[in-house]
């Protein structure tokens, strides 16, 4: 169970004079749920953007283990990251408002369409069958997330909780080995957060994925994560089980300030 899946080695990233991420190293093992926490502006989202190759000019190395071979993610184009089995969501839900929920899921399966535009124009048998199989896959995921009835509605106008679910559903379309969730519980009410907790555990079990998430809701993070990485001002503070993180003096200091 404890095979490493994602390895960050001395990753640094700065914007001008600001060091957003400073010499950060940690490892996520296969099958884990890992939380990345830190006060506002600690550089959490920047770490995610480096991992998913939205930022290319970071220092250090990020490896992703695929079929027992470690892959330097820097060599991989941002649009090819998903094909490696690494997929993410965004802090502010990034969906296509004027497509139906079903079509939004199919966007997540973009790479799995093998037929070209000519086949689509002619609607060849192969193209139709491909569309059908992927639609059925989407139905399965929508049923799993309990939003199947909404599939033909536009995303625009859906409640925030549903949009968050759609974004997770979209990541599942790519059969990911690892899902990176950027604040999945932000904007959700208490009941929805509890639901999300169950849901993320279910996803881990059913889809056999590893999950790395940023979250500010501490009780949520403590309940759900196997291990937690704490960072402050881009610097590594600690990586440990939720219990030990809570006791960690440095983490307490970062959040609450020093007792003078």
């Amino acid at each position, binding site marked *: 169970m404890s095979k490493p899946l994602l390895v960050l080695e001395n990753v640094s990233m700065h914007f001008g004079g600001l060091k957003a991420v400073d010499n950060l190293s940690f490892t996520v093992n296969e099958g884990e749920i890992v939380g990345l926490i830190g006060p506002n502006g600690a550089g959490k989202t920047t770490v995610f953007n480096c991992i998913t190759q939205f930022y290319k000019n970071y220092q250090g190395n990020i490896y992703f283990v695929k079929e027992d071979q470690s892959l330097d993610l820097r060599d991989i184009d941002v649009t090819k990251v998903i094909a490696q089995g690494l997929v993410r969501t965004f802090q502010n839900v990034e969906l296509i408002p004027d497509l139906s929920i079903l079509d939004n899921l*199919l966007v997540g399966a973009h790479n799995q369409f093998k037929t070209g535009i000519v086949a689509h124009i002619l609607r060849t048998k192969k193209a139709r069958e491909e569309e059908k199989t992927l639609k059925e896959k989407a139905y399965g995921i929508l049923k799993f997330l309990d939003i199947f009835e909404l599939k033909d509605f536009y995303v625009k106008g859906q409640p925030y909780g549903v949009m968050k679910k759609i974004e997770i559903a979209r990541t599942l379309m790519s059969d990911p080995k690892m899902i990176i969730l950027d604040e999945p519980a932000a904007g959700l009410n208490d009941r929805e957060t509890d639901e999300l907790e169950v849901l993320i555990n279910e996803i881990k079990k059913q889809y056999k994925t590893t999950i790395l998430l940023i979250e500010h809701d501490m009780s949520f993070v403590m309940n759900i994560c196997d291990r937690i990485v704490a960072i402050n001002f881009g610097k590594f503070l600690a990586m440990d089980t939720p219990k030990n993180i809570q006791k960690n003096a440095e983490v307490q200091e970062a959040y609450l300030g020093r007792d003078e």
Partner: protein
Amino acid sequence: MKILNQVENFFGIISKKIGKHPIVPFILFGLVIASIGFLPHTGLMRWGTMGVFAYIVIFTVVAMGLNLLLGFSGLISLGTAGFVGAGALGLGVFINLGFPFELAALMVLIIAGSMGALIGLFSLKVEGIYLAIATLFVGEILRQIYTQLEIFGGQAIRIGAIRFFGFIELSMINQFQRSILFLLITTMMVMMMIIMHNIVKSKTGRALMAMSRSQHAAQAMGISLLKYRLTAFVLATLFATFGGIMYGLYYQNVPTTAWTLDLSLFVIAMVVVGGMKSIYGTFLGVFIIHGIPNLWLKNYFGDISYIFSGILIILVIIFYPYGFVYIWYDLKRLYIKHKLRWMKKQVIKDE
């Protein structure tokens, strides 16, 4: 009685099976438009009216291409007219050089398509208003080429009767053949509508929309901006050029001075007024912008009719910012509301 039921059942099954097929409405729509081509023979319609409808049919194809850019991909082009001109004039030049129609059309499409790809590459570097300016000058360069180069014949290129597959000859001058030509361009329009529908409902259409609505999400989902910007521009230019070929095919006499910025702007207005992201909306837009002033307003107001069409366009944009075609949803809502009210009344009566 039993037989009647069976017949009804039989047709019910057929209509259910065919009716669900997505291309059926396009074909029905095409049949309605095609009938216009034969009305002048019966004296119910003037020949000029048919000419206006031919223009509408042609520009529906052009505007659909721009809709792919504007409505789906969030990109803009002010050079549309240049490419319509490329289609029409290029066809004329190649036919006059002695090429058969089919080959000439294919060559024009390939040339214009590669130019579209170039603009697509360029669009990766520039955004928004700068892209508009760049395409504006592409259109302007094309217009200058058409009017200055001798190969385009100065004022206009006369194509004359067009031969299909080397033996069927159709000329604009013969009234019956003109109807056939109208039927032909309507068929072409329906074909392009189906192509558009299939593109939009496929992976490509979704990728284009993802690209314009959220660039980051698109990239994270594996959609290459380079590939789909190119696709968008190539498709748009191909549609515009195809419209130009239809123009050359129907009118058989192509002016060199008509492909101005004005026309490009009118095509944008057609898309915006008719309905972004809507195929029938595009037709509606062309009808409002070109059809209404030319079919009716001109008869009453003469040259100032464009003032009225201007007012009409402003009204449409105020009340239907996403396009006039969305009036359909309002009508539907109204219908359902009245139906509900009527049903309520029935229930009260019954009680």
